[in-house]
């Protein structure tokens, strides 16, 4: 179907189902139950899942296929956000021109950075991309370009936002928050079934549709002759050039495609929340997408989505566990034990969520070099073996 083989089609269908039913899956715990805390089905987080999923999918096209490790991809995300917010400021809140411009601008910037950085390979390439991104971060954070030109371009650390006195030449009587031809991103439907409550936000579904499209496009790229060439670059560049192939434009194309994915993600961030801040371009954010990709499973199709979801869930849910909550949870224990447990747990929750993150990175990398996807495959194969002992199952290559 859709030019995909059976396995890929079912993978795509899985992602489609996951995206469409995320509001239900993520709010699986009844609203008033003790586990409701673990629900992630609120608009902002779901949108972030989808947006960072797109970001990571794009990054994986570069890193997973060609093996070129860019340490500055957040720059394209930031550039995309700035472009989108500028469209809001100049035209109106319609997200379509904003998204188009963010993809285009991110694409152009990635052509320049890619063209220069790809003159080097290995860690030299990584550091070049890092240097470019850090430079762009500094420039955005203090609005250096704006200062050189005597205008406000990024609005410094406050972040670029929309003011009532912005031109917005097409605004008219249109909505005053981001919308797609009148369909406001902030709108949502709420479904209550018994003790459950599910929120279906418009903004999320827009992100989800784009995530599905991005995912579909990435499958097509993975399976295309072009994708094969990219994998060839990762495998053996010498053979590549002696087979008559010029690896440079292939890598550059991959770099630009992944830059455009990042631009789309950045534009979506701004479309969901019309503000663009320089922190989006900081090196830790570039590192985060590397981590998402590796955590999920580098070079696999679905890994980046899983990785992005895991990281964003931890960042948004675990960081909200405060000591009061922990005391509530452990209140069934005798007091001394309760305090001991709370003390122990507080290292990993609330302000200690970074610790949990660090531990997770280490565990996954040490025990599951193929990322969460490999973990899933291991589980699945064990399950299958248990089911039918006589059929020996080979470990499927990570895909």
């Amino acid at each position, binding site marked *: 179907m859709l030019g995909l083989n059976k396995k890929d089609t079912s993978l795509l269908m899985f992602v489609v189902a996951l995206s469409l039913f995320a509001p239900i899956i993520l709010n699986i715990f009844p609203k008033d139950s003790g586990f409701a805390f673990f629900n992630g089905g609120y608009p902002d987080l779901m949108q972030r899942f989808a947006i960072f999923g797109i970001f990571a999918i794009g990054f994986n096209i570069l890193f997973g296929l060609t093996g070129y490790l860019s340490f500055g991809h957040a720059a394209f995300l930031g550039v995309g956000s700035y472009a989108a917010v500028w469209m809001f400021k100049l035209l109106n809140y319609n997200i379509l021109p904003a998204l188009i411009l963010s993809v285009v601008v991110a694409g152009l910037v990635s052509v320049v950075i890619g063209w220069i950085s790809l003159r080097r390979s290995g860690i030299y390439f990584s550091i070049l991309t890092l240097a470019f991104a850090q430079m762009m971060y500094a420039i955005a954070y203090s609005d250096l370009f704006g200062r050189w030109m005597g205008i406000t371009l990024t609005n410094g650390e406050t972040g670029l936002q929309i003011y009532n006195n912005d031109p917005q030449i097409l605004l008219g009587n249109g909505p005053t928050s981001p919308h797609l031809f009148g369909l406001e991103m902030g709108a949502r439907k709420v479904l209550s079934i018994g003790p459950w409550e599910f929120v279906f936000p418009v903004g999320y579904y827009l992100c989800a549709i784009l995530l599905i499209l991005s995912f579909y496009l990435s499958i097509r790229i993975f399976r295309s002759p*072009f994708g*094969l060439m990219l994998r060839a670059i990762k495998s053996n560049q*010498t*053979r590549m050039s002696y*087979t*008559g192939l010029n690896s440079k434009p292939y890598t550059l194309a991959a770099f630009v*495609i992944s830059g455009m994915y990042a631009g789309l993600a950045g534009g979506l961030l701004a479309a969901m929340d019309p503000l663009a801040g320089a922190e989006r371009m900081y090196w830790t954010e570039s590192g985060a997408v590397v981590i998402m990709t590796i955590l999920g499973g580098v070079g696999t199709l679905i890994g980046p989505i899983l990785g992005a979801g895991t990281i964003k869930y931890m960042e948004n849910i675990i960081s909200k566990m405060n000591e009061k909550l922990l005391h509530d949870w452990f209140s069934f224990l005798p007091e001394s034990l309760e305090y001991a447990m709370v003390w122990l747990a507080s290292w990993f929750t609330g302000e200690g969520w970074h610790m949990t993150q660090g531990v997770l990175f280490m565990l996954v990398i040490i025990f599951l070099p193929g990322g969460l996807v490999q973990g899933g495959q291991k589980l699945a194969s064990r399950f299958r073996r248990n089911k039918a002992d006589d059929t020996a199952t080979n470990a499927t290559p990570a895909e």
Partner: protein
Amino acid sequence: MGILEVKNVNKRFGGLQALGDVNLSVKENSCHAIIGPNGAGKSTLLNCFVGKLIPDTGSVMFDGQSVLGRTPYEINQMGISRVFQTPEIFGDLTVLENMLIACFAKRDGAFRMHAVENMHNERDIVEKAEHMLEEMGMIDQKDDHSASMSRGNKRRLEIAMCLSQDPRLLLLDEPTAGMARADTNNTIDLLKQIKDERDITIAIIEHDMHVVFSLADRITVLAQGTPLVEDDPENIKGNPKVREAYLGEAA
């Protein structure tokens, strides 16, 4: 006029004269071997043919066009394919995928943005690749991980990739180096078969005299970066200068 014409090539590395006044002509549809002791400059010379090195002086013409200053992929697109001493294949990919890449490179040139095209629509390419694998007797292994094959099979795959591009000149850099005897003989048979069945020019650098004399129509002996003699295999065998410079040493 040969298909590959090397004229007055000199190359120095610092104080070392790696190549001195090399003149060489490889005739079309022949198998030309370049032999010589270690350090004679064989690999340096080969690297000058494929764009990896640029000689200090002299010219290297392929089919009337200079190859100097061109990149390896441009030279490959001109019709020169190279087989390496240690097989260079795409180890992360399957055997079939290795072949597909070579076939695409032949058809689409050095770069083509076929990013969303479907492999299913590339029936011709796949058939061509599979056909070549069949010819090489590797069709059963087409879905194998190429890095996990034996050295002989890796060599076979590498040659298959080169042949699938229908090169006019095939450069072989010690194709049997480091191989077991059986693998060596298989490779010789394979090369013989290729030579007999195809309109192809082969230039081979080799250490192993058994291989050289099984294949070559013409032999150039390099010593200290300079051609000592160029002649037919029978005459080379009997040439005392060669014996002194090379064979005697090897014996």
